């Protein structure tokens, strides 16, 4: 009998992210310990052997980190070559990225840079890692908001289409309604069915406070004939769904736009790194 019975989930293993987090903390502590020990032995400057080895390590880390971007864009090749599952690459990307910043700081002996390129590298390292961590936070936070607070799942690329669909359905329902409800629809609801809307509020409240705004609708419903009430109920359902689509629009868009903060900056970082490496090794 293959009937599944409810059972407790097997949680014997630590969740994935915690293992990586542990690795990050361990690596950070290790690096700082090495740096502290090193500082007792001798001064760390970007130019001396210590500093150079930290710099080299940082460069290797950032290249590993950047390889993730390459892997994401050559998926067919990566899969065929068995380059490893992307779910392992992402934590590696995060881990190496975060450690990269630490090693950059160690490379300079926690001093401020002097040159234009080095300033650029320094700032971009911070920016890239910070935006990466922001992205990590968003990626861990938004999907849960979307899943826990909303009932429906919408594909981002179809939002315009689906908004149009809900709008036309709403208009059809409103068209069948009597004067009162139709008037109410036109004055109070029609605008909401228009375009997909970006609202900051969704970040705090994925529900978007739609229940609050629909109170007037309930007030109206109580005073309507049963069949009109049914239509208003349908309108209400559509309106809530539109709000959910808006939430999806806002939050999924945030997930997409975030990458604009991270990726171009990281490419500039790599360009600067190339120049930096050239000057270091050439001169």
């Amino acid at each position, binding site marked *: 009998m293959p*009937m*599944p019975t409810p059972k407790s989930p*097997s*949680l014997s293993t630590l969740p994935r992210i915690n293992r990586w987090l542990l690795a990050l903390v361990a690596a950070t502590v290790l690096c700082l310990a090495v740096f502290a020990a090193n500082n007792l032995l001798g001064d760390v400057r970007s130019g001396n052997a210590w500093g150079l080895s930290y710099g080299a390590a940082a460069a290797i880390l950032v290249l590993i980190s950047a390889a993730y971007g390459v892997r994401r864009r050559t998926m067919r090749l990566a*899969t065929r070559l068995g380059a490893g599952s992307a779910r392992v690459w*992402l934590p590696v990307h995060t881990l190496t990225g975060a450690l990269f910043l630490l090693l950059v700081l160690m490379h300079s002996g926690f001093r401020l840079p002097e040159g234009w390129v080095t300033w650029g590298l320094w700032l971009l390292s911070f920016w890239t890692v910070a935006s990466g961590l922001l992205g990590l936070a968003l990626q861990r936070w938004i999907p849960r908001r979307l*899943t826990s607070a909303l009932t429906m*799942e919408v594909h981002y690329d179809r939002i315009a289409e689906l908004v149009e669909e809900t709008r036309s359905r709403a208009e059809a329902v409103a068209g069948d309604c009597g004067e009162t409800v139709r008037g109410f629809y036109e004055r109070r609801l029609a605008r909401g069915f228009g375009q997909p809307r970006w609202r900051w509020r969704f970040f705090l409240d994925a529900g978007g406070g739609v229940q609050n705004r629909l109170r007037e609708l309930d007030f109206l419903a109580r005073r309507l004939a049963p069949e009109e009430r049914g239509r208003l109920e349908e309108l209400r359902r559509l309106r809530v769904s539109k709000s959910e689509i808006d939430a999806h629009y806002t939050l999924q868009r945030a997930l997409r736009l975030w990458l604009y903060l991270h990726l171009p900056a990281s490419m500039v970082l790599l360009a600067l790194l190339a120049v930096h490496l050239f000057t270091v090794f050439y001169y």
Partner: protein
Amino acid sequence: MDKTGIKQSELHRDRWSSLDTQGGIVEVSERLGAAELEKIELFADYDRKFLDKISHDVSVATWEAGAVLFEQGTYIDLAFFVLSGEVEVWIEGGGEGGARPIFDLDRTQVAPVAPAERTGRDALGSTRLMKSATRVSDREITMLATMDFDLPREAGARLGPGEIFGEIGALSGWPQSVTARTASPCRLVQIRLPALRLMKRKSKALKERLDGLYRQRSLAAQLKNTPLFQACTDMFVEALKESVELVSLEPSEVLVREGETAGDLYVVRSGFVKLIQAFEQGEISVSYLSKGMTLGEVELMIDGIDGWQATAESVEYAELVRIPGETVRQMLESNPGLSEILWSSATERIREIGAARRHIPHSEFVQVALDNGLVQGSSILAIDLNRCTRCDDCVKACADTHGGRPRFVREGNRYQNLLIAKSCYHCRDPVCLVGCPTGAIHRAGVGEVVTIDEEICIGCSTCYRNCPYDAIVMWDTHEVWPADMVPQGLRGRERQAASKCDLCADTGHGPACVDNCPQGCPYRVASLEEFQALLDRRP
């Protein structure tokens, strides 16, 4: 030869040329005209026009002795008719028999099944190389339903001229239960599935002949392998197969209704049957039956219960065997061990129904699973929305692997934190295979993977309409059918093709969608247990 004839010949070459690569074939005939086909006994019933129509799906091949026609466990879309020579068929190995997947589906392994369960399922006690324990039990049942030949293990049978074989697997989309090898140089008529279907539909005689063959070769074996009848003597089963009735159900067809008078025992041959009970103002699904399970034992065994306890309704197409109540009673008398089996099955059923009524969330889950075909799928793409960042990397990976065009839509119904994407489930009983006029949609040889050969697909949309889960998409190739196209109706029209997930079957790696997700949120789910594990997981 007219234009159509030429095209028919071309199509014939298209269909059959790949056979040349197979070892053992001495010669494959050119397309046979209606006149030539008529001479063969099998086609004697049909008129010339019909034979012309199916001619490109029929060929006569000459095989040398000792050539393997097909191996046990593979999916083929051919039926063979022996013209001359002898073919040997046999079942390989002990418990290992049946469809052992050569192709590794590489499904994501979700929460591991508890070890106790795993070993418990290994009823046959042999070493198994299966990825997941749940699949082991499936396989046993698959074996049961697809037993083409009633053969003892390790024994063979010889088929001479005038015999048909391979047809059950071809028609039902089941894996072959035997390995077939030519015992002497043979001439075989090979009929592709579309032609076979048309022939079966067209000729009552053939249908009866095939059903007869099924009864003769398969039914007894099936019955004997049902736990219920294992205790019975062979002779009894031989007798039984004459008294039973084969039942076919259309999708959502009601078999029995709750409260109506019961009396017979049903055994599920294929498909799924859900059991529904009235509940307050509505109804709930309390359980479902899959291959090899029986219905009616509660009503038969327990005194005082005469009416059906639950309505039984097919989920999609289902095949059952009905054993009259009288026969069952005879069996019980002659086989005391049988009642024990039926009793335990009955009490289990009653316990289950009770549990379903008390445990509403579980009942809801069963309902959803049945409505969405989760019981069907052998590899359902489920995405954990708690982790999914909607980055579409899964779709990109899919597109990259399939020449730039993805094979699924990341959209679909949501159940709790799972999105069940519009991607092929790779059903255990694929309804999409039914009615394909060209046989373009087929099992990919081994395993439960269903794929579409887009070269052969004529874009008729049958599978697209048949798929209950919207997993097949018709796409515009931006080509136009050539002027000599057969069937003629397509000529000059825009060429469309059906397309669906093939689990990256030809790539040598697992599904790219799973491999390329940075968040690790897509899963290829094979069973309800795995679904349950995903649902219960902490976000």
